[in-house]
Structures are given as structure tokens and as C-alpha cells.
């Protein structure tokens, strides 16, 4: 279980192959995620970042390899074990995936009601607490998802992902579609929540600023494999052409060591 530096590995992906028809998206992918870190997962559009995330959480079948979460191989686990593990992670989908026929309050209470028997008073108080943690005012509780702005939808989605106090949170492009200020706030929100709740965060993202400001480690998916995993410094120092194009391209000037990091 213990990986490099003695840190506990919470997600262990080994030789995973995923494909659709004759098209192989992930070809023998290996990846470790350590407890308590924020891992940024990057790669070109259509490279299969979301595919790996969806394979880890069990939404897509894999053709080969093993995925262990908290040391349990999900493919071999019993239904009871699987459920116990699913309860320990939360997922924020790209579009929020809030239940459109339920209010924000009901959306947040839904997972809690499903797993725990709590008094209505405690449920209501907890929902307010969760909502304030993600920086929203309790006045949105009675609204329906269609009445929320993009940023609010993401925050409510995050609150719902955090409803059961998970240990791992999967975020699929959390800052896409947000303005730079909103994205920055969301980044610091993730960092704050990671610190207060001791979360492990698996974040699929394209946002170079997020990668730079909140991610402890970065994993890069290209050519159907994870070609590199490490800190920002490792990425910037890498000679791999894709990494050079990604981290030294025109849009990455803000994160160059000689400017922002000087």
C-alpha cells in the first residue's frame, strides 16, 4: 500500500486498457494517486482523461489491467465492498449533473438520505453547512438547477460530491466554463476544502493556472499512456515534445518560472 516517500496509495491503476470498438483509448496505463494530494490530470482534448476517470469510478468497462481503490480491486470486489468504497468517494461531473427535477436542497440531501438515517433538523443544518463551505448563500437552497448560473452549478455539484464527507473527490474539468476570477476562486476553494477535510483530489483539467496554483502533482496523458507524473518543476524540465508544447506554449507564459515564479 505504501508507495514512494512512504505515502499511502489510494488509487492504483496498473496496465489498464480501455477501448471502444477497434479504437484503443488507454493502452496499458499506470498511475498512482497518494493520500492527501491534489493530482492534476492533463492531456489533449479527446486523449481519454475523462475516460480514465470514468473507468476508475466504474462507469466504463476496461479490457485489461487492475484498478485498486483503497487497496481493493474493484473488479473483484463484492457488491457490498463496492458500495462501501463508492460511499468514500465523491464525483463532480463536468456539467454538474445535478438532478434537474430536485431543488438544490434535495440534491444535496439525496446522497445523505440514501446512506444515513438523520433527523430532518440535522439534515437541513448540514445542507446549509455544506453549501457555505463551497461559498454559496443558503438562499439558493430552494432553487432548481436550471435557475443556477454555471459557477453556482459547479459549486452545488461540488457540495453534493462532498455531501457524505468522502475521502477522494473526482473533479472533471471543475474550472471549465468559469471566468478567470470564478476559476481562481474555485481553485482556492478546492485547496481550502482539501486542507480542511483532508481530501485526496483527482482533478481532470486543462487550466494551467489550476495546475500551477493548487495541484501537488501532475500526471500527463498522451499517446494513450501516462507519459509523465510529477511536480510542476518536473513537467517544465521534461524534454518530451508534447509536454514542451503544453507547458511552454503561448498560453502558458503565466506559469513560466522566469515570470510568475520569479
Amino acid at each position, binding site marked *: 500500500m505504501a508507495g514512494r516517500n512512504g505515502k499511502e496509495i489510494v488509487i492504483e491503476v496498473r496496465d489498464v486498457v480501455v477501448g471502444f470498438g477497434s479504437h484503443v483509448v488507454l493502452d496499458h496505463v499506470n498511475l498512482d494517486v497518494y493520500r492527501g494530494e491534489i493530482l492534476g490530470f492533463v492531456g489533449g482534448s479527446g486523449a481519454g482523461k475523462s475516460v480514465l476517470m470514468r473507468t476508475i469510478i466504474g462507469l466504463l468497462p476496461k479490457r485489461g489491467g487492475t484498478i485498486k481503490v483503497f487497496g481493493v480491486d474493484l473488479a473483484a470486489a463484492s457488491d457490498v465492498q463496492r458500495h462501501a468504497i463508492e460511499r468514500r468517494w465523491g464525483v463532480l461531473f463536468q456539467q454538474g449533473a445535478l438532478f*434537474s*427535477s430536485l431543488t438544490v*436542497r434535495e440534491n444535496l440531501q439525496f446522497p*445523505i438520505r440514501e*446512506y*444515513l*438515517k*438523520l*433527523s430532518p*433538523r*440535522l439534515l*437541513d*443544518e*448540514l*445542507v*446549509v*453547512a*455544506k453549501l*457555505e*463551505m463551497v461559498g454559496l448563500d*443558503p438562499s439558493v*437552497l*430552494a432553487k*432548481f*438547477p*436550471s*435557475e443556477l448560473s454555471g459557477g453556482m452549478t459547479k459549486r452545488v455539484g461540488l457540495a453534493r460530491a*462532498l455531501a*457524505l*464527507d468522502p475521502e477522494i473527490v473526482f473533479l472533471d474539468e471543475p474550472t471549465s466554463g468559469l471566468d478567470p476570477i470564478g476559476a481562481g476562486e474555485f481553485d482556492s476553494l478546492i485547496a*481550502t476544502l482539501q*486542507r*480542511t*477535510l*483532508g481530501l485526496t483530489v483527482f482533478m481532470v483539467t486543462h487550466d494551467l493556472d489550476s495546475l500551477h496554483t493548487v495541484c501537488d502533482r501532475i500526471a500527463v496523458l498522451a499517446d494513450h499512456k501516462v507519459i509523465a507524473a510529477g511536480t510542476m518543476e518536473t513537467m517544465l524540465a521534461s524534454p518530451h515534445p508534447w509536454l514542451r508544447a503544453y507547458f511552454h506554449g503561448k498560453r502558458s507564459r503565466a506559469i513560466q518560472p522566469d515570470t510568475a515564479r520569479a
Partner: protein
Amino acid sequence: MSDLLLHESADGGRLRIAGRGAWVAENADALEAEINAATGGNAATKHVDIDMGRVEQLDTFGAWLLERLTRGFSARGCETNVTGLKEDYRALMDEVRSVKPAQAPPRRGNALADTVAGVGKSVASVGATFVSFLNMLGAIAIALLRVLGRPRSFRFASMVHQLDNVGWRAVPIIVLITFLIGCIIAQQGIFHFRKFGADSYVVDMVGILVLRELGVLIVTIMVAGRSGSAYTAELGAMKMREEIDALRTMGFDPVEVLILPRIIALLIGVPILTFLGSMAALYGGGLVCWLYGGIDPDIYMQRLKEAISLDTFKVGMIKAPFMALVIGVVACVEGLAVKGSSESLGMQTTASVVESIFLVIVLDGLFAIFFASIGM
């Protein structure tokens, strides 16, 4: 949960509470009960010490309950002091401390008043729906005039595609169902008319009933359920995904692009389906008359010619396009009334089918009165 999460010792005005074990989501229910019991205690207490040194795990649930405990004592004027909290959980407690007290969700008012208000609202909405039908009818007429002005702007490909869905693909099921209805009417007729020795009048009944009423009614009810619901769901999904707004911003009129081809497809398709359906029903009736009633096909044709006239046939066919228009307008109005949620899509689709079947039957009644008074 048998292991106590809180145990108390009191001396004078000083109350000591110590938490232990795991203050996490799984134990939240048991913990809440104990916390409620603790806050409801002795009124003489002025100081409360909460020792959290033996709490091994704390999550948001536990943190909030601890916060509620301290707030409960503070509200009674006690001084509270939390000690021994692990350093890791300090940030979490700070976060929870800033949460404002929850307001209870607004509860429903008077149930009777709500019911009466609900009735009033639904009556008012009937009027509003009627107005929106008229609106749609007007919008379609305007779009039609505009298209007649410049025929090249008509979405011919889209209309053909809809006609394929609404007409061609519906033929097998509609022919099958009307055939069976024709069989059943003939069988029932023969069975009961035989008692009076009036077997041969079955042919009159089948002919007139099918051509005037049943052919068109069965077909339009099928089309309302099959294509009306599809129209509503398609337009509703487009509305939800802002496709209709996108059309508008590009300078297209959604009525002209989306609705007019659909309505025209219905106007063409439904009369054809009515004709095919009526023929299938007559065929089914004839088959049953022959096999079950012993009426020879030649005699069946002979009686049919005597019993029905061209008027009987026209009555059914004249009604078909009007019914098609009603189905199309209702389906499109309901489709555009869809709001953001998937639930509203389901509600509007249901409303579309129910309203169009209801209106088709009402319209059929009005036509019956009209044709009777002009002697057709």
C-alpha cells in the same frame, strides 16, 4: 450505537463533557440524540468544558454537531470551552464555526387554501393554454404565408423526413390496429344482430361507423400518441439545450424551421393514414363477416355499395386534416413550454398527448353536429 460518545460530570455550575470515539457520519444519528440530551440539562450550569481529546475521527457531520453543542450552551448564556481538539481538525472547526444558523425550509401554509388556490390556478392555466394554442396557430399561419411568398425557403427535406416518421413508418401499426378494430366491430355486430335476424345490417354498421367515425378517430389517437408525443419531446429537448435560442439568434424563425415542416407532414400524413386505416378496417370487417358470419365477400361488397355513399367517405376524410392540425399545434405548444428540468419534459409530453386526444374527440363531436345540420 452502544459506545457513549459523550459522558458528563458536573460540579456546581461547572459541567464537563468529554467526547470519544468516531464523530463521523455513520454515528451522527446517535450523536445527535446525545447532544440534544446534553444541551437540555441543568439550568444552573454556567461553564461548560468540552474535552475532545479522545475523539479519534471528526468529519463535517461531527464538527457540525460539536458546533451545535457549543451554540446550544452559548444560547443559554453558558461559557463554553473546547479543549483537546486534534490540530488536523482545527481548520474544519473554523470552517463550521462560520456557518450561519439554518433557517427551516418554508413550510406549507393552510392545506385547504392551497387546494383552492391550486384549483384556481389550473382553471386559469386552461385559459392560458387556449391562448397559446391561438398564438401558435397564428404563428404557423404567418410562417406559412411567408413561405408561400418565397417557396425556396421552405424546409422541404425536413418535411419529407418528418413525413417518413409520421406517415410511412406508422403504416404497419396503424393498418394492423384498424384491421383488428374492423374485425371486432363486425364480430360484435354479427353476434348481436343475429338475435334479430338482422345479420346483413352488420355491413351497413361497419361501413358507416368505420368511414365516418372510427377510421379517423383511431388513426388520430394513434398519431397523437405516436407522433404528437415525439414532437413535444423533440422540441422540448431542443428548448432545454438552447437549440431553439440558437436558431433565433441566427435569424431563423423556429416556427418556420422546426414547426411548419412538422405540421405540414402531419397534414399530409394523417389523411393518407386515415384512408389506409379505413380500408384496413373495412377489409377486417369483411373477413370476419365471411369467416364468422357466413356473408359471402360478393354480398359484402354489394351491401357495402348500397349502405355507403361518397358522402360517408368524405365526412371521414374532411375531418382528418383538421385533427392533424390540432395534434400538431398542441404538440408544438407543449414542446416549447418545456422548462429546464427533465421532469417538466415528461409533464409536457403527457399534457401534449392527453390534450390532443381530448381535443380530437371534442372536434369530432363538433363535426358530427356540423355534418348533421348540413345533411351530410
